[in-house]
């Protein structure tokens, strides 16, 4: 099966070669999947440096547990499952220690370097920052379902498989997450309205 120009059988071959001791084969796997893993860690953690560290940790964990990988399962899904669990753990630790999740998260540097017209670029960055801030307000369990649904276009079944949960749990979390996002939008528009009234 070919996905985005990449044959998933290539993953299996590279996994087999890595297990036989070929580290370069693992390098090819990293090269192929780095973007999807990094995008997830960035959307979950909201900070470029921490996201890169979490993405690296995801690949290291995959390398260490490669022998446990089930070839009947998609390698991409397996990687995203590792990344999701790792990010949720980090967020829980973070909440317990030093960072308030209420803080707005900065936009990714890659988003500011696009070669679009300045106005379009500004709108894009603004909406991306708004999106990231809204994501940052969601609890980790809700955030991950939104990321997998919108950035990876995953079905309920695929999300359930990635998060090792049931389809009904995914539906429920998506519904709660959307409800929270709607409330957040309502609060934001009320705040904007009061700022506008103050100016008048």
């Amino acid at each position, binding site marked *: 099966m070919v996905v985005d120009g990449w044959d998933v059988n290539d993953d299996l071959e590279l996994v087999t070669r890595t297990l036989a001791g070929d580290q370069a084969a693992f*390098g090819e796997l990293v090269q192929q999947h780095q973007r999807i893993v990094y995008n997830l860690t960035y*959307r979950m953690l909201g900070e470029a440096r921490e996201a890169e560290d979490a993405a690296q940790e995801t690949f290291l964990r995959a390398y260490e547990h490669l022998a446990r990988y089930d070839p009947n399962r998609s390698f991409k899904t397996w990687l995203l499952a590792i990344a999701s669990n790792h990010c949720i753990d980090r967020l829980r630790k973070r909440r317990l220690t030093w960072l308030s999740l209420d803080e707005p998260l900065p936009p990714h540097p890659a988003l500011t370097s696009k070669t679009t017209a300045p106005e379009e670029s500004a709108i894009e960055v603004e*909406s991306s920052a*708004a999106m990231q801030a809204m994501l940052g307000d969601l609890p980790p369990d809700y955030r991950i379902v939104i990321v997998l649904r919108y950035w990876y276009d995953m079905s*309920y079944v695929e999300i359930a498989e990635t998060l090792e949960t049931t389809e009904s749990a995914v539906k429920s979390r998506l519904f709660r997450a959307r409800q929270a996002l709607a409330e957040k939008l309502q609060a934001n528009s009320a705040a904007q309205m009061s700022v506008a009234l103050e100016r008048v």
Partner: protein
Amino acid sequence: MAHDNYHAMMSLALDRALPPEEQCILHGHLETCPACRSTWDRMCCADALFGQAISVAPSADFTARVMVRVAEREIARHEAKPWRLAAAIITGLFAVIVALGVAGLALLGEGDLVNGIMRIAVQGRLMIASLGAAATLIETLVGALRTWLGFLVAQPVVWGAAISMLTLASIWLGLIEALKPTPIRVESGA
């Protein structure tokens, strides 16, 4: 809270997973309930915002960095092996001793177990005495060897022969090394 059911239907509708008959129910409700209409509008707004989601990429040297960390972990894993082995042996021995103790206590009772341990201690002392005799024998042999080596070292002929042998061996090894073919280095990439 009372309209949670309609909110759940909205979420399914956004994923195009709501059956047509339920869609009719939802839209009928939205026409009569302004609060749910407002929630629906905001859910659609969030859906549109997230629908434009842009994927971000890591830094250009990401793969190289991962591979450096993989190599570091491999080295650390190999270095940690003797410690792990020692820890496993100690833990294993401790577990065996505890298991034997518990089993002994269960099978023999406290008094018999103490007697059994005392008997094992006596046997151990006998074994140590035997080991002492073996040590004396080894000491004698080592003493004889030292005397013999001392005699050899005192002889100038032996010294001369040893030095000659070492010189010959060095020359021979150097010659072998020089005759070895040099591997050709192949540069990969531009």
